């Protein structure tokens, strides 16, 4: 990379100093600082809730700050709105694609800086402009078509094209690669290098460490709302990065990243068998089984069809072909309620959208799936409910002021525990856990992991989906690898090494895996 990367003599393009922000009394950022030099690609990393997005939102004027100072281009800077930030040369690409699906590609790229002729929009010029921008990404498509006609990766590219097209001095990319494949990531990195050559700075947020080493010059690490370290990418090792993010020493990290520990044996009969499941564009041919007392893990890249498969088993989406059997009997759940009656529980990956009912209490959330059994003649038996709720609060160590506290007031980890209890209370035969530790802090994560292990030890059949490879590898007794909607490999716990599973995930393209781990 170029020498300009860390040279302190160049006055920084952006300098955020001691920025603090609290939401309703809870600090989200405390005294965080960030400095970006012109033409520099700076990585911003941290665990969920470390304060990255708060930092970005403050910079782009989406929210205000409580304290601190921001200098941009040598002058004090305060964006009043994302629009204001954009006008001043700060463009942002958000993690979720923030575009308008019904509108054309051109509009999605050009809205906010339209070409005009005689005061009216010049569609010709705008289409041309959109085409040119996309050509930089080696994308050629009909820009008049509505965005929703294109796949997620293309939409992401459109979002990036939009941000870059704004003559930005600083481009912020919040996990831009989460929905891109390798080829598209390579193109994106080319564009980033090109931007850099043009003197544009980039703040790059990603959880994929290899990507950071591929394009970033420097890295700033955040933890608990603070910026704990800034270093040259070249001078910091992967392990040290992880250790700083987690706030643990290196030896500890190297040993084990999960709390599953050792537990093998006592695996019983097959509980669930799935044969050649298929539905929609995401699931084409998936087969697997889960046995009593076993944690079966799904590994796969984003879009491999893991969540979609789980939803089919649970009846949340309609199954088009294939067969399911539970305890030897064929089942065809068409609605979740049927799966639940058959003895299946499903904890969604999106806690907020599909898990908690925020206005309801811990008790009401905990017994939501169990309620029909708690009611006599349609009336909820309060005493029975209370007994069950208290039992599970204690057993899972849910930290709350009591069963009547609203669930939205709990931390993510405790909410997750309540949702786990929602299914455990039903005493299911099979529990499907989709990303059970996503977005919760390290401590709670370990607790949940050991709880899952304990449940399996007690004989529960668990199907676990996780995007964290080590969670799947260390936690699962068997690992099923899914790729593009098909089950492509099955590994026992012993066979499931990182390289073997990753090779299967990437379709045996050993070059790619080797390249990834070498850098």
């Amino acid at each position, binding site marked *: 990379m170029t020498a300009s990367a860390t040279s302190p003599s160049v006055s920084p393009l952006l300098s955020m100093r001691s920025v603090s922000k609290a*939401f*309703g*009394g*809870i600090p989200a950022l405390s005294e965080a600082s960030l400095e970006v030099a012109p033409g520099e690609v700076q990585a911003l990393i941290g665990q969920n809730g470390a304060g990255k997005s708060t930092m970005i939102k403050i910079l782009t004027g989406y929210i205000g700050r409580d304290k601190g100072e921001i200098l941009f281009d040598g002058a004090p800077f305060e964006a009043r709105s994302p629009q204001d930030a954009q006008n001043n040369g700060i463009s942002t690409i958000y993690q979720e694609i923030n575009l308008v699906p019904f509108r054309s590609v051109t509009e999605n790229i050009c809205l906010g800086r339209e070409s005009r002729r005689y005061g009216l929009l010049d569609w010709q010029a705008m289409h041309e402009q959109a085409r040119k921008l996309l050509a930089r990404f080696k994308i050629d498509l009909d820009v008049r078509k509505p965005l929703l006609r294109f796949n997620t990766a293309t939409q992401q590219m459109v979002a990036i094209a939009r941000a870059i097209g704004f003559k930005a001095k600083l481009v912020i990319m919040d996990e831009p690669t989460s929905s891109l494949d390798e080829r598209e990531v390579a193109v994106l990195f080319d564009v980033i290098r090109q931007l850099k050559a043009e003197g544009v700075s980039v703040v790059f947020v990603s959880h994929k460490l290899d990507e950071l080493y591929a394009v970033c010059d420097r890295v700033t690490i955040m933890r*608990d709302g603070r910026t704990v370290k800034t270093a040259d990418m070249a001078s910091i090792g992967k392990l040290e990065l992880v250790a700083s993010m987690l706030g643990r020493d290196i030896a500890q990290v190297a040993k084990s990243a999960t709390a599953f520990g050792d537990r093998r044996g006592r695996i019983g009969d097959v509980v669930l068998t799935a044969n050649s499941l298929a539905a929609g564009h995401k699931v084409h041919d998936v087969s697997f089984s889960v046995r009593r007392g076993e944690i079966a893990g799904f590994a796969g890249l984003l879009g491999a069809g893991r969540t979609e498969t789980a939803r089919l088993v*649970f009846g*949340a989406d309609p199954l088009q072909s294939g067969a399911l059997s539970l305890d030897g009997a064929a089942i065809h759940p068409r*609605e*979740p*309620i049927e799966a*639940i*009656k058959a003895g299946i529980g*499903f904890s*969604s990956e999106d806690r907020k*959208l*599909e*898990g*908690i*009912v*925020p*206005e*309801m209490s811990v008790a*009401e959330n905990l017994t*939501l*799936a169990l*309620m*029909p059994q*708690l*009611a006599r003649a*349609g*009336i*909820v038996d*309060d005493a029975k409910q209370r007994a069950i709720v208290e039992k599970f609060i204690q057993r899972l160590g849910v*930290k*709350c*002021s009591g069963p009547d*506290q*609203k669930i*939205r*007031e*709990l*931390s*993510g*980890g*405790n909410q997750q525990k309540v949702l786990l209890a*929602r299914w455990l209370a039903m005493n299911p035969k099979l529990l499907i856990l989709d990303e059970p530790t996503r977005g919760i*802090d*390290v*401590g*709670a994560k370990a607790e949940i992991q050991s709880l899952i292990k304990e449940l399996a030890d007690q004989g529960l059949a668990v199907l676990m989906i996780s995007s964290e490879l080590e969670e799947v590898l260390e936690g699962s007794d068997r690992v099923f690898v899914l790729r593009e909607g098909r089950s492509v490999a099955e590994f026992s716990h012993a066979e499931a090494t990182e390289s073997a599973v990753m090779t299967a995930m990437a379709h045996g393209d050993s070059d790619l895996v080797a390249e990834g781990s070498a850098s």
Partner: protein
Amino acid sequence: MSQVQTQGPTAATRRIDALAAVMRYSTLGALVALLIFNVLFTRHFLAMQTLDVNLTQVAAIVIVGVGMTLVIATGGIDLSVGSLMAISGAIAPIIFLNKVFNIGEIHLAVAVAMIVAVLLAGAFGWFNGWLITRFRIQPIIATLVLFIAGRGIAQVMTNGNLQPFKLDAFQWIGLGRLFAITDVYRGLPIQVAIMIVLVVVAAWVLKRSLFGRQILAIGGNERAARLSGVPVAQVKRWVYCISGLCAGVAGLVVIAINSSSDANQVGLGMELDAIAAVAVGGTLLSGGRATITGTLIGALIIQLVRYTMLANGVPDDVAKLAKAALIVAAVWLQGQGRA
């Protein structure tokens, strides 16, 4: 670390809880303040007749408001209630005036008329729910269909004509009284009794029953509810059906009071009054949190504001402006409590 996280939100939400408490009591407080004001400044306010007038006028709104509260609790809305009242109000006289087929025994005719009218309104309500769940149409639009067509159906049934009647056996539902004490108390109007029974039953259902819990779960997070095995479509259809049934009852009450049924007038603007009562009462308009007694209080506040103004010489038109401001203020306060 987790220590900090569990304690933080508690401290933060204490403020919200405090606000919520203020909100809850502010509704009740407003009602009390209105009562005190009237006792002090409005002549004859404490007379039994005044109470009577106010309760009678509020009864139909509350009856419809009970159904509306349940609908809003699921995150929906029902604009068709006024039209369903008109349908119920149109069909009942057709039956008990023996226009279609002859039922000799008058009490039987009245009973058939009432049951058919209420069930018909309920069936239309169920149709609303079916549209919303089967085709995933936004409630505001789905119920708009019957808002427009429903009154038309009532008008077509009666050819737009007024149906006057004088029939104690039927008008008992609007004019009858319970527990009368000769010379001292004229008795509790039947429609007020119906209102009280409905409020008590609905409040109890919402709080204690499986059905109530399911309603609130759907309004609070529909996707989570479905994944937890709540039969979302079924619950919604029932809720809209109940709203229709309530509208049907209210339609009967209104025509009984008027001694006539006018399809052009019965229930006109009722959706607004009911929604206003629900909003002022403190039910979350986005669903998930609802209070039936709140709706009763809300309706009483709106009624009392109007009565207070009228009794003190303010024209009815100005009272409308006040009502509009009241609705906006109540909903705005609600938003503040949650922010």
